[in-house]
């Protein structure tokens, strides 16, 4: 394949060259374990400390509130499981939403099997939770609210500050899965009353296999991975120094260019959305038009199935994703698309295009041009479209 237009940046991103350069010395030169006594370890230790300071600074936290983990899923699991078990004497009720990532939802299911009760809040047709419903769902036994900062499929940004206020008012801990939001849109954990926040390095041009958890000082949370005394005995395991350094560097770069990137990406995104909505019939934009990640486009094309769409786009050099059941390996289409009220057959025809700051207008113009042809072709093969046309002719 020659052309490659990568529009799956919500799945993972390319490590930036500057990030890679920063990581490089920690593989073969300063490879030491930062916990060691000898001076050879000083560089590695300083690098980890600096990364921690840097990240803390970017979100308005203190350095000792940042804990490095093995990724977003681990952070999510840690926040939920350790809070649940730590607070089980206070209560057994957790509130989350129907559109969380599986790292939250499947962890909730695990907790339900272990005696906890979970309320899964509905969302509206744009994917937003209702603050009223949230507040109504709080019980005396509620120990945790976990609502994602921004949704990974439809890009909707939840009212985090307001959720934080409600949580604080009711003295309930608030965790947010910010895997898609961090380094893409501004976050201040203090302003937003966030007690815990999960982040994954590879979603903003950092490396895979590294993440962090912000854990507000004062929140008593045991370890999830027990063992050595790394991360103040809250997350055992030899520090992944290149990973930590790379993640911090990626975060710095992203924050330095954040305003510009948001502007740039939003423009490309809006152009892409507008062209799709204008030029392709029977299409629906999923997610909130305004409260939306700058890099997310998600549409449903009626009468078309997502996997076929992806393969045809792939043949044109376009990398994208879909909430179709076929691509998820499960029988049902995306739980997020169902939660915003889409019928199954519509949800099967979803397409997610997630941009990076390097995505150009030309890129998305090419994608729309190809997309139009592909949708037309797939519809010409679709018995659902045939029925629809016949019905309309009558």
């Amino acid at each position: 394949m020659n052309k490659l237009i990568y529009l799956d940046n919500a799945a993972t991103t390319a490590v930036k060259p500057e990030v890679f350069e920063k990581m490089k010395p920690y593989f073969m030169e300063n490879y030491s374990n930062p916990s060691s006594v000898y001076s050879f370890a000083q560089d590695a230790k300083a690098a980890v400390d600096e990364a921690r300071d840097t990240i803390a600074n970017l979100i308005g936290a203190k350095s000792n509130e940042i804990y490095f983990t093995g990724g977003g899923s681990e952070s999510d699991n840690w926040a939920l499981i350790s809070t649940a078990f730590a607070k089980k004497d206070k209560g057994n009720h957790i509130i989350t939403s129907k559109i969380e990532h599986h790292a939250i939802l499947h962890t909730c299911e695990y907790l339900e099997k272990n005696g906890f009760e979970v309320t899964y809040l509905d969302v509206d047709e744009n994917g937003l939770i209702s603050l009223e419903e949230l507040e109504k769902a709080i019980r005396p036994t509620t120990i945790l609210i976990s609502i994602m900062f921004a949704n990974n499929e439809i890009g909707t940004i939840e009212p985090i500050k307001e959720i934080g206020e409600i949580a604080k008012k009711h003295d309930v801990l608030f965790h947010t899965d910010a895997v898609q939001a961090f380094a893409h849109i501004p976050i201040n954990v203090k302003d937003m009353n966030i007690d815990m926040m999960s982040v994954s390095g590879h979603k903003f041009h950092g490396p895979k296999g590294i993440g962090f958890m912000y854990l507000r000082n004062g929140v008593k949370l045991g370890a999830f991975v027990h063992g050595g005394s790394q991360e103040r005995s809250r997350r055992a395991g030899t520090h992944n120094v290149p990973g930590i350094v790379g993640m911090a560097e990626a975060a710095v770069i992203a924050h330095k260019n954040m305003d510009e990137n948001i502007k740039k990406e939003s423009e490309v995104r809006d152009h892409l959305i507008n062209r799709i909505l204008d030029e392709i019939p029977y299409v629906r934009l999923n997610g909130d038009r305004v409260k939306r990640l700058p890099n997310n486009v998600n549409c449903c094309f009626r009468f078309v199935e997502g996997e076929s769409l992806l393969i045809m786009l792939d043949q044109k050099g376009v990398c994208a994703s879909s909430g179709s059941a076929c691509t998820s390996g499960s029988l049902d289409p995306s739980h997020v698309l169902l939660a915003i009220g889409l019928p199954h057959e519509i949800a099967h025809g979803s397409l997610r295009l997630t941009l990076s700051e390097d995505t150009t207008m030309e890129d998305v113009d090419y994608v729309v041009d190809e997309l139009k042809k592909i949708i037309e072709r797939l519809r010409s093969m679709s018995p659902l479209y045939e029925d629809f046309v016949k019905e309309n002719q009558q």
Partner: protein
Amino acid sequence: MYSEKVMDHFSNPRNVGEIENASGVGTVGNAKCGDIMRIYLDIDEETKIIKDCKFKTFGCGAAVATSSMATELVKGKTIYEALQVTNKAVMEALDGLPPVKVHCSLLAEESIHAALWDYAQKNNIEIPGLSEPKNDIHEGEEDEDEE
């Protein structure tokens, strides 16, 4: 993920389309699950040979490819021979399918059967070995998620 044969039949599907006044039409699958196949058969009254066969499919790459291959396999065969075209035959002809996609080949088999059944019903004949297909199209298409 897919074999070259599958990709070929997906990218250049044979026999896509409709047949006006077809001898038999069968539609199987379920939009809810993301796969619907419709097969049109043009059958010679005398010889019972399938002269032409077309399909339309809403579904994944494997669904399209298995439909395409199934139409190829039954074309030119008598309806009795066509009944012997199993999902295994379709898969083999495609050099295999990923395990999670085996159900698509079953749909392809079923859609042929459904079209043959339709033909048999219309012409009031019985095809030995053919039973009424479990045609669940338009069944349970409503959103029913409830947690």
